Structures are given as C-alpha cells and as structure tokens.
C-alpha cells in the first residue's frame, strides 16, 4: 500500500534524525573524554598553567571558572527570580509589560560577544574595573539574567492555576501566596533551571574575552584577603576561565603540549557540565519527591 510505504520511509528518516542526534552526543562526549581523560591527573588539576613549557595545569583557570560562576549566580539568582515573579504574577497585559518582554527577548538573544563588548565599554573602560572578575561576572549577569527570569517564570506558570486561586481565596495576599504557595511549588523547576543555567555560565567564553581578560595573576591560595592582588578572592583581578583557556591555548599559545592541555581542559569542562546536569536532575527529582511524598 502506497501510504503505508510512505509512512514507513518517513518514520525511518525521523528515527535516523534521532539517531544522528544521539550519535552526535555520544561522539562528542566520547571523543572529548577519550582524548582528554588521559591528560587529566591530579597534577594537571592542581598546578599552574605554563607559558611556554610543557606540563602546565589548569588550577587557576578551574578556580576562576567556579569563582566567576559563584559571583554571577549571587548577582543573578535574586534578581532573576524576582524578575520571574514579576513577569509571571504581577505583570498586567499592558504596554509596559510588552516592552519588558521585548527587552527580555532582546537580552536573551544577544550574541554573547556583544554582551562582552558592552562589558568592555561599561565595566572595563567606563568604570575602570579593568579586566576583572567583577567585570566578567557583571557581563555574565547580563547574559544569564534573562535565562533565569525565563526559568523562574516558566516554573511559576506551570504551578496549577488553582493553587493561586486557593491561596487567594483563603485571604492570603498575593505576595504571601507567591512566597508561601507558588515559590515552594515551583522550587524544583527553578532549581533544575538554575543549575542548568549555571552550566551555561560555566562554559561561556566570548563574553569573558573582553571583560575578565586572558590572564591570571599568580594566585596565592594561602592568602584569602580579598583585597590582596594575588588573592584568589580578589574581585578586581583579571581571571582567565577554563573555557577561555581552551580557546587561548588553541589559538595562540606557545606551549608544546597545547593539544594535550586543551583536550584535558575540555574534558574537565565537559565532565563539570555533565555533573551539573546530573546534579540538576537528581536534586530536582529529590526535592519534588520530598514535596509530594512526605
């Protein structure tokens, strides 16, 4: 039968697409891990990068990545969740909301390099924060804020409408309904979204190129005074992150083992992303189960 044949062929093609998709992931992860894992060692993770000799590590880059991530999340999470609450619960369908939504769309579709250029213009040059963790984190805030607003808004919207109604019908104010009923119910979704967005921040590179710089001072991991120039905590020092390091090592370094360092660093990066993902999934499920099954 003709239509049956067409059906079979097209189904086959669609399955092919899915297989390609899965293949790409398997290929990517497999290749990166295969190439990179052999280069990962305790030494690689805990020693400084080298400018021209073989055998450098990624200690500072790894630290910088996590530190910038932390600062970015501290800046974005409260802002983003509050923004999400506004968009989901308070925004009335009027011109202002329409405009705000457009802004959100614009912001979330800006190329990260444009965000980086904005950071260069404003944070680095205008405020004279130079290439620094602060500039980088602020640029990433611009980059990540719309994502978190979106995550929070979606999570709140997916809370059944009758939860809202029952809160209000019990004489709770809207704010208390949000705080006590909706946010807890949306929490697993928000948490999962936050962690996934953290993964994206962790891997971002173009926005940091012009804001956090491509170098790291010699960090003294015994000096935790945030004002010291060589303190890992200093916000006003330049900081090369792991993903920027991969790019830099590949495009303009003079170390002889650039390939090994790059693939090792890429493997570390991907493993971190995988862990973020796994973590988000497990935590989200755990929290959800705790809320429903208690």
């Amino acid at each position, binding site marked *: 039968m003709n239509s049956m044949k067409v059906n079979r062929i097209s*189904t086959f093609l669609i399955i092919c697409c899915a297989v390609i998709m899965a293949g790409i992931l398997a290929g990517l*992860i497999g290749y990166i891990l295969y190439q990179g894992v052999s280069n990962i060692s305790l030494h690689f993770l805990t020693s400084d990068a080298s400018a021209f000799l073989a055998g450098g590590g990624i200690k500072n880059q790894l630290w910088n990545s996590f530190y910038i991530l932390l600062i970015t999340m501290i800046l974005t999470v409260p802002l983003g969740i509050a923004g999400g609450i506004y968009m989901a619960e308070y925004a009335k369908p009027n011109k202002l909301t329409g405009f705000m939504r457009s802004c959100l769309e614009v912001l979330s579709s800006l190329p990260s390099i444009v965000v980086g250029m904005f950071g260069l213009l404003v944070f680095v040059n205008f405020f004279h924060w130079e290439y620094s963790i602060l500039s980088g984190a602020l640029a990433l805030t611009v980059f990540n804020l719309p994502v978190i607003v979106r995550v929070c808004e979606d999570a709140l919207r997916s809370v059944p409408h009758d939860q809202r109604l029952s809160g209000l019908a019990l004489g709770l104010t*809207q704010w208390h309904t949000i705080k006590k009923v909706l946010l807890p119910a949306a929490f697993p979704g928000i948490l999962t979204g936050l962690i996934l967005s953290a993964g994206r921040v962790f891997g971002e590179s173009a926005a940091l190129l012009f804001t956090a710089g491509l170098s790291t001072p010699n960090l003294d991991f015994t000096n935790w005074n945030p004002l010291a120039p060589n303190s890992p905590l200093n916000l006003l020092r330049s900081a090369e992150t792991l993903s920027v390091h991969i790019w830099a090592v590949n495009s303009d370094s003079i170390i002889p083992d650039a390939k090994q360092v790059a693939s090792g660093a890429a493997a570390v990066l991907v493993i971190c992303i995988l862990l973020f993902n796994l973590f988000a999934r497990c935590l989200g499920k755990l929290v959800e189960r705790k809320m429903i099954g208690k």
Partner: protein
Amino acid sequence: MIVKNGEPYVDDTAINRRLIKKDLSYKTIFSKKREYRGKILVFISASFIMAATIAITLFLTFQGIRSFTVDRVNIISFLAGLNWNPTDVQHPSYGAFPFIFGSLSVTILAALVAAPIGIGSALFMTEIAKKWGQKFLQPIIEILVGIPSVVYGLIGMSVIIPFIRSQFGGLGFGLLAGAIVVGVMILPTVTSIAADALKSVPDDLRHASYALGATKWQTIYKVVIPAALPSLLTAIVLGMSRAFGEALAVQMVIGNAKDLPHSLIEPAATLTTIITLSMGHTTDGSVLNDVLWSLGLILLVMSYIFIILIRFLSRRGRLL
C-alpha cells in the same frame, strides 16, 4: 437616627470598617503585612532587565556610529565594500561586506544542517516514540545545550578540519567547517524549541486524524506540522540568531581570511571573528577600533531583526 448640627448624621463607625481598605501611607507601603513591599521589590528587579537592554542598545549604538560621525567612514562603502585593509597607511579601507557575507553564509548553512535533523528529532520525541524521546533525547538535548562553544570549536579543529582537508583538499579551515560546527551547536536549541512547538499542538487534533484512519506520517505531515509551522520556523530562526552571534567556535575553524571566499572550503571571516581577532590590537578612539564597534552594532541590529522576525512568526501562529 442621630441628628448632629441639625443634619441627619450617619454614624460612620456603625458600618463595619474591617472590610474597607486602609489608606495608603508610608507605613502601609513598607509594613510586612502589606504586599506593596514585595511588589516594589520584584518590579525593581524586573526593571533591571529594561535598564540593561536600553543601556546595551544605547552604548553600542553611540560607540558603533562613531566611525561614521567622527571618523567619517562612508557607511555605504563600509557595508558594501569588499576590501578590508585598515592598516594600509595611505589608503585604509573598511569594507565589511565579506564579514557580513561570511556571517550570513555560516548562519544559513548552519540552519540547513540543523533544521532537518532538529525537526526530525523533535518529531521523534513527540510523535514516534514519546516515552523514549522524553527519557533519552531530552537529557541528550540538555547536555548538548550545556556544552561550551569552545569545546565545539576544539572538536571542529581536531576532527572536522582534518576530515575536510582529507576529503576536499585545501586547509580545511573555511565556511564549511564553520557551518558544520555551528550547525551542530545550534542543533539542540532548534530541537528543543521545535519539540515544544510540536508538544503544544493539542492531542485532540492528532486523535481526530488517527480516528479518521490517517497513518502516522499523514497525521504528522498534514495535521501536526501545519498546526505548528510558525513555531517551527521560530525554532529555526532562533537557532540562526545563535549561529549569527557565535564567536569563538567559529573563529577556531573558519580561517579568518578577509576576502570573499570563492568556495565553501576556502577560509572566510565573520563579523564576530573579526571583532575577536582585532579588538585587542586596537586602542580606544582609533578608527579601526571604532569600525570594530560598528561591526558590533551590526550584530546588535541583526539580533533585533531576528526578534522582529520571530515576533512576526509567532503573531501568525496566534491567528491560526
């Protein structure tokens, strides 16, 4: 009835005031019990988004038009010129067309890579194997979205470039490599948005179709895809907008040659790669620096255009 000053007087306190709103005052606005406090807080946070967007647009616009207003670069020859040679001492030329062309080609080619596979995978997830799709493809997509672009670039350099070199000759660096890398990169974005679009087609329609004896493909092709078409196009456009703005992964594989490429395997450059490549070499206020900001402004304008396109598509979707 109470009479006061010769007038009949309704005792206000007799009416129960407990259901009447308290007057607005400093105290009620900031007191814990009232909700104004929370409302103001979230509104201010939301305003940050507007502030950031406006700031970015204004700063980049002002910085980006300097090359035309201050440095007197001809805007036509900037947009349409084929020759980019800012270091020539006598006759510096700032023709950005090859980069615009490069960006557009990479974007379109990437969409050609990503759209069929992405929409196919989305169909798999929503129509063919729902359970499987949710269980396996969803996490795959989430992981792929999370993989940093430099990693895609790295793989492009170490796998795709040697492959192209061995298959087609040449350097391997070029539009084709860029398009493949970016196409794979936007694949998860396209897939997940397309899957959302397909999921939002009401099951009613599918049931109607199946109950009328349609095969799976007939249902997909004649009912599901037409109903989701504007959103599917949105998915592709969104993917393209990501491709247009991608910088480092492209720079690692495209070769960064400033001439118009003659074939897919010749090195080329895009707006983003030329910015990352040259920005560091310039000083504030130099013509080259200003021109790079103008390239940034083009990126900004393009992302606005993409948004307008998406808006247009989603409005069409609502009419259906």
